[in-house]
């Protein structure tokens, strides 16, 4: 028997149990109160799931990337906020694991992620950049005494107040161009988060993502060695778009499952000899869910393909276009499927207190097209499609 496969299967089974028994139970309260899903995140912590992707020698379980993606799907089905927090944390873990370049401080840090099950948030959005993650205003600034400081105006920082560490993108130095960026890993005890605005959004309310002015003081060794542009192309962007897509697929799948449960209950009471109208709507909806699932899995498969060997293919424009397509497509499809599920369930789906309620699903799924705006990605792809040749 293959030991690796067993480890992955066990993790997934445990995450599924946490999703069913804990995340699902608190999902409505998390949503209603716009509060952090601490019960589910604590359970994932206790299971060691926050570091499962790390290699065994760093205290992880060497879990495959596909398994992480499947875990995001399972959590997303039961509580989208939990799924999204888990996904965003894993984006930082995968990114640091792939780009620590054997630097002693960073590898020791990853060991602490495993030992202490530290939760990592990211501070990549910034006022004044037009939503372009590839540009920064705030800069790492040297001080006479040695450490580096920064001050960044971030319009959204998901679970910034709940995280133990923050991965912050910044200009490399005060005189650096906006595109000359680095990523810095700062501990919560090294940063000050000054709230800038409130948190009462339409959906994904448990991610707790208000704006902050983030001030920090870090040491040189906390700066990831490769440029942020390289880290984005190689890991952060494709991994984000894949794991988010799995969360959105989870939301859409649960909306579909609720619609199916509604139709089964209705069909059981029907005396008609032909399928009831809701059953026909469900059949059409299943044809909409299927391409969302296909695109989500295809995006994952393409990443593994591009990342093969030295991963050089991830630096191509064709790769950039591919993972932008994935994000735009899945984030457009997921809310449409949720709305289709509402069409199946009717009033029973519209009510917040019915077992077939779809409201939270629709609201959560609508966040997808805004987190990295789809319009912004279309602008980028419009450029890339002019020159990229081997577009899939």
């Amino acid at each position: 028997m293959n030991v690796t496969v067993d480890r992955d299967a066990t993790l997934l089974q445990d995450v599924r149990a946490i999703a069913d028994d804990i995340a699902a139970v608190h999902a409505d309260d998390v949503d209603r109160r716009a509060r952090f899903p601490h019960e589910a995140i604590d359970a994932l912590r206790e299971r060691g799931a926050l570091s499962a992707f790390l290699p065994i020698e760093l205290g992880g379980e060497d879990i495959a990337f596909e398994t992480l993606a499947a875990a995001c799907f399972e959590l997303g089905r039961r509580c989208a906020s939990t799924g999204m927090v888990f996904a965003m944390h894993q984006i930082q873990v995968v990114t640091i694991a792939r780009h620590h370049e054997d630097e002693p401080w960073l590898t020791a840090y990853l060991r602490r992620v495993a030992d202490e099950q530290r939760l990592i948030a990211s501070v990549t959005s910034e006022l004044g950049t037009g939503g372009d993650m590839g540009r920064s205003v705030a800069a790492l600034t040297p001080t006479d005494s040695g450490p580096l400081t920064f001050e960044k105006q971030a319009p959204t920082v998901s679970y910034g107040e709940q995280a133990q560490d923050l991965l912050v993108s910044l200009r490399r130095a005060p005189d650096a161009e906006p595109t000359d960026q680095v990523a810095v890993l700062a501990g919560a005890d090294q940063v000050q988060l000054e709230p800038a605005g409130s948190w009462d959004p339409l959906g994904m309310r448990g991610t707790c993502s208000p704006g902050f002015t983030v001030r920090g003081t870090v040491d040189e060794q906390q700066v990831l060695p490769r440029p942020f542009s390289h880290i984005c192309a190689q890991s952060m962007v494709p991994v984000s778009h894949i794991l988010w897509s799995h969360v959105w697929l989870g939301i859409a799948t649960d909306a579909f499952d609720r619609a199916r449960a509604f139709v089964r209950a209705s069909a059981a009471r029907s005396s008609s000899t032909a399928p009831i109208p809701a059953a026909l709507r469900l059949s059409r909806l299943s044809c909409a869910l299927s391409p969302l699932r296909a695109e989500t899995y295809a995006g994952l498969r393409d990443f593994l393909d591009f990342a093969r060997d030295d991963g050089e293919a991830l630096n191509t424009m064709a790769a950039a276009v591919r993972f932008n397509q994935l994000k735009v497509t899945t984030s457009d499809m997921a809310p449409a499927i949720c709305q289709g599920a509402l069409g199946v369930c009717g009033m029973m789906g519209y009510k917040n207190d019915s077992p077939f309620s779809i409201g939270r699903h629709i609201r959560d799924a609508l966040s997808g097209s805004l987190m990295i705006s789809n319009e912004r990605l279309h602008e980028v792809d419009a450029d890339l499609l002019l020159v990229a040749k081997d577009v899939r």
Partner: protein
Amino acid sequence: MHDTIRALLTQSGRLTTDASTLPVDADLYTAGLTSHGSVTLMLAIEEAFDVEFPDHMLTREVFSSIGAIAAAVAELRPIPAA
């Protein structure tokens, strides 16, 4: 070839620094080349040198300096008949 690339950089690259005095090995992204600027530059270079960059050459690294671009173009251009 370096001067042609410099001229195209001035036209299409939208750098924040003066392309005409930029050293051959200077990092263009550090000099302010944006992703939109790099796309316009690639199109201009393909047209000026009558080459087509295959996908594996459409990377950040290949367009990171005047020297790197020149090397890529040289690799693609057919050897002129003697």
